[in-house]
């Protein structure tokens, strides 16, 4: 295998990509998906957590208290977010429907020191975003109420949990786990999927467009042609990964162990690309190869995620700066897998060049 000729082929493919400008679409797409998932997590929970807006400190929710006597109004008054009104159930529900109240609570008749449970019915507006906010806020009060009742009944409890309290409270909502544990690994592996799809397209295109014969009249051997195509897709991986890491850093998301992450992403993506290349070489048809590959990719991903210390897990650990003791082993394993797959690619190519 002549590296120079392989490089020429790789450059040809990269030029093709650059001239079609469709790679821009791919990057745009990834950006869109990032937005999409952030919307799902951060956006939705920001809607549910009004303090994320920072401008709602003065807001007060009216809550109708109905039913039997309870200490709830007093508890709610302790919280500056609520204004309790003692009302009749029917009137309160009508007001809730017109959105003049945020919630209505109906208190059951059990006394605090009774044997049975103290019950409340919480009425809110069905599937409403505002109701979700209110439920979250009310939960604090309910927890307090629960603790009070539990203290009253504590003689009947035989085992208490080990006490544990924070030295300093965490007041703000944090998306750390979402960003480091989900978004970053996912974003960094998206290029692998794109490049794998790309290598199928590049390989099957030559045979389906019947341009392979022309290519083979050049001094380049088939293995060099295939190698060049795989190489072109592989180069895109660290480039895209770096782009993402840069973008994340611009968003002031600090990422540790940059070099290790890029190495890991590149090597494990190489495995995926090689698998895609084998399918493409075997089927010589885009529809078939893409279909089989996408199914196989889903299986591979699910399987990898089922084990700790999978590459995605390792990326999360590396990015967060947590110890990743299996990092080296996984790198080695990926490199070994690449080697085996490369040999398979060579065998498949040799078999097909004989035909």
């Amino acid at each position, binding site marked *: 295998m002549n590296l120079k000729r392989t490089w020429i082929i790789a450059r040809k493919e990269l030029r093709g990509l650059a001239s079609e400008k469709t790679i821009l679409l791919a990057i745009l797409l990834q950006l869109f998906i990032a937005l999409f998932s952030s919307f799902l997590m951060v956006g939705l*929970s920001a809607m549910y957590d009004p303090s994320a807006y920072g401008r709602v400190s003065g807001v007060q929710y009216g809550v109708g208290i109905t039913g039997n006597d309870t200490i709830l109004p007093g508890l709610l008054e302790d919280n500056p977010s609520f204004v309790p009104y003692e009302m009749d159930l029917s009137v309160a529900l009508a007001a809730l*429907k017109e959105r003049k109240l945020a919630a209505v609570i109906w208190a059951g008749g059990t006394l605090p020191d009774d044997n049975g449970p103290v019950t409340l019915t919480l009425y809110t507006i069905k599937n409403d975003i505002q109701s979700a906010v209110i439920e979250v806020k009310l*939960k604090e009060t309910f927890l307090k109420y629960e603790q009070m009742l539990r203290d009253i009944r504590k003689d009947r409890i035989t085992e208490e949990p080990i006490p544990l309290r924070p030295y300093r409270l965490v007041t703000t909502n944090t998306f750390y786990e979402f960003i480091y544990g989900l978004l970053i690994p996912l974003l960094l592996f998206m290029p692998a999927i794109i490049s794998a799809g790309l290598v199928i397209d590049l390989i099957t295109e030559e045979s389906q467009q019947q341009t392979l014969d022309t290519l083979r009249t050049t001094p380049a051997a088939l293995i060099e042609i295939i190698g060049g195509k795989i190489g072109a897709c592989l180069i895109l991986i660290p480039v895209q990964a770096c782009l993402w890491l840069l973008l994340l850093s611009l968003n002031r998301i600090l990422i540790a162990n940059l070099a290790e992450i890029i190495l890991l992403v590149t090597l494990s993506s190489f495995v995926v690309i090689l698998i895609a290349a084998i399918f493409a070489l075997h089927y010589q048809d885009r529809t078939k190869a893409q279909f089989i590959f996408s199914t196989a990719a889903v*299986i591979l991903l699910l399987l990898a995620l*089922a084990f700790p210390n999978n590459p995605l897990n390792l990326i999360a650990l590396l990015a967060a700066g*947590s110890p990743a003791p299996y990092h080296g082993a996984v790198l080695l394993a990926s490199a070994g897998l690449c080697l085996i797959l490369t040999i398979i690619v060579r065998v498949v190519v040799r078999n097909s060049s004989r035909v």
Partner: protein
Amino acid sequence: MQMLHQLLTLSYWEIRRFFSTMSRDLLPLSVVLLILLVVVSGFAAQSGMHLQDGLYQIGLDKPEYLDIVGYDPRYLTYDTSSYAAANPREVGVDLMIQYGQIFRAQGEKARAAQKSLERDYQAYTDRVYQEQEDLFAAYPLWIENDYVISELDFLATQGGQQLVVPGQAALEAPEPELPVILVDPPLSSVPADSELLRMSLSDQMAKDQDINRYTGMLAQQDTLDNPYKIPSLLSPPLPFDTIIFIFVFIFPLYFTSQFFMMSIMNERTLRQGEALIAAPIRPIILVLGKMLPYAVGMIFIVSAILCSVQADIMAIFPLIPVILFFLAFALFIGMIARSYKELSFISIFFSTIATSYLFFPSIFANVHIVSLLSPITLVVHVIQGTGYTLTDYIYATSLFYLTSFILFAICIRNFGEEQLFTESGIIQKLTLYLSGLISMRNWWFSLFFIGIMCIPFVLMAQMMYLVLFFNLPMPASLLLIMLLAAWTEEIAKAAGIIALIEALPSFLNLRVLIIGSAAIAAGFLFGEKLLLFVTISQISDSVFGAALFLSIGMLWMPFLLHMVCVLITGAAVLYAGKRALPFGLLLATIVHLAYNLYHLQGWIW
């Protein structure tokens, strides 16, 4: 009759071709992969997702605390009993538990670790209390959720009634305006069997943990019979069903449309379809014949899914326009892609956008009228048993129908040798297709027509902006929507001018430009009013509608605006060449935005 015969013959060929290519060498492997997929998903479901294992480090001074964090793979635990009174940073951990207190290091990571630990502690307390003999001593308070239905519309958001933040509460209890309907108080009885209750409790807790990881606020919708919850499990439900439905329906449709796309693309590679095009068959028959098997297949798949969830067959109607939409875009992409890689990129890009258009609104199913923009919401309604009205159907699907039909029409008109076998970029292809719509003699009428034709696409894009941004705080959402809407409209209007230049290269001069701009503006306005009249009075009555569609003011004002904006873009191209197009667009967008701002000033200042 003859045409029908041709159509069926073509479909028959297409089916044969499909099965001959997908046969022998593929079938055994697909079966193996399918079995593997089932096995692996089962395995993955059992072992859980290991994505964040070992993310946090925690030091414990007593082994008892392992009861709290030992179950959570996110924590690496260390014995720090010998490090009395050291701070976490010196020890090199995120958190330390000492003498019953949690100490944390500086920074975001330690904060996140503490949040997670607090949730784990809650789960641990629940585990301890749940074992208690006297369940009602450990859990004295039980809460039942009940809901009142009150649907918001777009007018509510602007009329003081906000989605997220309500106003100040008064000192006196509010009085309802409408007559009060007497309501029976709820029966306060928790199921007496505390063992059953205990089981349902542990079930709820297990579910809660999965989603709680990321936000700590959302919970999976409860499927258990027991309506009572303890306070710590009281979380607002995430519309989980909807999210799953989207993927259940969209993915098979996407894959099938991919096969259609490939079939079109294959006709183009090596000019294989040349014989077909040369045959004395009209292009419309050609396209429909090739498409029919896939359309039938998609309807079949969707029906099978609906049957398997035992849904009413009514649910199939909202999905038909979605199927058409996917097929129309598959045809279009199959016709314009230059190479396989371009095909992949464009189709993935398109399907992501389409999926989110279907997805975003339906998150708000039952919450907000915006959800009705997505046909999937109607499916959700049918499955929930509420059903939908004809108005809902028109409102949700008309844009899908219109865009699909227009796209089909454009593609069929351009389904010829010249367009299929030329290699050029997407933009050039699109220009070529549009120029195919320009007639030499009645060019002004063609422009008028292109103006009308753009409307559904523009509306669809604008709906997307609406869905994405309507929940931002008021002035920001309005401004952003306006800016994007104006920009999209200007691009759509420029399309006519570009098509004209492409079709009749040296024809454009100032006179033609003015007449052309008028024609496009007229077409645009006509299409806009027509479509608004039919479909979206709900939105267009609100301030968002005004921002999007300029429905206020006399008719001649928006006409003049549209015309001036096209003129600006056109003049830029006429006098400075095609390269000046982006500049012209920018200028036109600014003018457009300024006009809109002027009209909406009451809402912003």
